[in-house]
C-alpha cells in the first residue's frame, strides 16, 4: 500500500482539479448549497412547524447537521462509481483497487473543509465564542471518515456486480437523511423511535459535533461509542468483502 501513496495523492488531486475546472463557480458551491439547504429547512421546521429544539436555536443545529451529512452523502455518490468509472485503470494497471475508494472519499475532504470553515464563521455570529474541544472533534471526524470509507468499500464493488444499486442509492440517501437527526435534534425524536435513531452510525457523529461546536459539552459517551463501533464494524466488513471480490474485478468489469 505504501508504495502506491503517490498514486493515491494524484488520484485525489485529479478528482478535485477536474471537478473545479468543470464548475464555473467552483468551490463557491461548497458554501452556497448547504446555505440554501439550511435556509429552507430553517424556514420549514423552524418557521412553519416550529419544531421544539430546547435551549438551542434551530438554525445552528441544522447547519452542523448538514455540514457533516453532506460530506457523507457526497462520499456515497462518489464511491458508488469509483470503480465503474475507472474501468481502464482496473483492466490495464496493477494497483490495490482500494485506492480508488479512498481517493473518492479524500477528494471530498476539501469541500468539507470549506463548508466547515464557513459554518464556524456563521456560528461566531450566533453564539458566544469558545474554543471547541479538539480531542472530541478529532475522534468524531475520524469516525466519519472511517464510516465513509466503509460504506464506500461495500457500495463501490457491489455496483460492479449489480448496477441496479445506482438507481436505488439516491432514494436510500434521502430516506436515510430523514431517519437521521440531520434536520432535527435527537432530543425531538419520540421515545418509541429512539432506538431506531440511536443504532444509526451517523447519529452519534452529528449529535457529538453539535455538542462540541454549539453547546461546548462533551458528547454522549454511549452514542459516540455506538457510532465508533458501527463505523469500524462496517469498515472491517467492507474491507473483507472488497478484498474477496477485488481479485476478479478486471475480469468482470
Amino acid at each position, binding site marked *: 500500500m505504501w508504495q502506491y501513496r*503517490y498514486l493515491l495523492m*494524484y488520484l485525489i488531486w*485529479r478528482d478535485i482539479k477536474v471537478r473545479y*475546472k468543470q464548475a464555473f463557480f467552483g468551490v463557491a458551491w461548497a458554501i452556497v448549497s448547504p446555505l440554501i439547504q439550511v435556509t429552507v429547512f430553517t424556514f420549514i421546521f423552524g418557521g412553519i412547524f416550529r419544531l421544539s429544539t430546547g435551549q438551542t436555536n434551530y438554525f445552528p443545529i441544522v447547519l452542523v447537521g448538514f455540514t457533516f451529512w453532506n460530506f457523507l452523502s457526497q462520499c456515497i455518490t462518489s464511491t458508488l462509481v469509483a470503480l465503474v468509472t475507472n474501468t*481502464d*485503470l482496473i483492466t*490495464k494497471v*496493477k494497483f490495490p483497487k482500494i485506492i480508488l475508494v479512498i481517493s473518492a472519499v479524500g477528494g471530498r475532504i476539501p469541500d468539507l473543509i470549506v463548508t466547515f470553515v464557513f459554518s464556524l464563521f456563521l456560528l461566531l455570529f450566533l453564539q458566544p465564542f469558545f474554543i471547541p474541544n479538539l480531542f472530541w472533534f478529532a475522534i468524531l471526524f475520524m469516525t466519519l471518515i472511517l464510516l465513509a470509507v466503509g460504506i464506500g468499500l461495500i457500495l463501490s464493488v457491489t455496483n460492479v456486480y449489480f448496477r441496479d444499486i445506482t438507481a436505488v442509492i439516491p432514494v436510500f440517501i434521502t430516506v436515510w437523511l430523514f431517519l437521521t437527526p440531520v434536520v432535527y435534534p435527537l432530543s425531538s425524536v419520540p421515545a418509541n423511535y429512539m432506538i431506531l435513531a440511536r443504532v444509526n452510525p451517523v447519529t452519534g457523529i452529528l449529535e457529538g459535533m453539535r455538542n462540541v461546536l454549539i453547546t461546548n459539552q462533551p458528547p454522549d459517551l454511549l452514542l459516540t461509542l455506538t457510532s465508533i463501533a458501527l463505523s469500524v464494524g462496517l469498515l472491517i466488513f467492507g474491507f473483507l468483502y472488497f478484498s474477496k471480490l477485488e481479485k476478479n474485478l*478486471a475480469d*468482470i468489469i
Partner: protein
Amino acid sequence: MSNEIVISLEKVSKKYHLGEPRKFTEIFDYIFHNRRDNIFWALKDISIKINKGEAVGIVGPNGSGKSTILKIIAGIVTPTKGKVEVIGKVAALLELGTGFHTDLTGRENIFLYGAIMGMSPDQIRKKFEKIVDFSGVREFIDTPLKHYSSGMRVRLAFSVAINIDPDILVVDEALAVGDVEFQQKCLQVFENFRKKKLTMVIVSHDLSLLKKICPRLILIENGGIKN
C-alpha cells in the same frame, strides 16, 4: 546472460465465464438450474520461464490468449489454476495513456500518468524535461489534453512510459499505433532497452515486427503453446 529466472508461469490456466449472470432472471437460472455453461478456457496449462535480460515475443492470432498472458505477468488478472512468480518491478504498457484526463494539461497528465506507472513526483520531476523533449509537444504542455490530436496524446504517453525504469517491461501491440516515424522511434527505444539488458515481454500478431526486437519467440494458439 545470467540464468536467473525472473518470470515463471507453471501450468497456468485461465477460465472465463462468457456472459456472467447480470439480470435477475439469469441469476435465478444460475442458482436454481445450475446453468454454468459458456465456460471458456483462455489459457490451458501454460508454462513459461523467462530469464533476466531476455527479450521475449509472444505471437498468435486474435483471441489466442496472448494478452491474457501479459495481464497475468503484470498481475492485473489472477489465473484460475497454476503458479505465477514474477521477481522485480513490472511496468505494463497494455494501452498508452491509461488514466489520462482530457481536462488536465499535458504537464499535469505527465505527473498523473507517471504516478499511475509507479513513479514518485521526484522521479518525474527529474525526467520531466527529457519526457517533454521526446514527446515533441513542448509548445502545448500547458494546454488541456482535449485540444491535443490523438497522435500527440500517444506520443506524450509513450514518452512517460519509456522513462519509468522498470525491472521488467511488458508491452502489448497497442503500441504499434501512430505514424511510421513514430513507430521507428518506438523500435529504436526497444532496441536500446534490449542493449541495456532489460527483461521484456512483447505481444503482437505482427511476426516481422517482433523478430526485429525479440530473439526468442513463443507462439500461442487457442490458449496453448505451439512449437
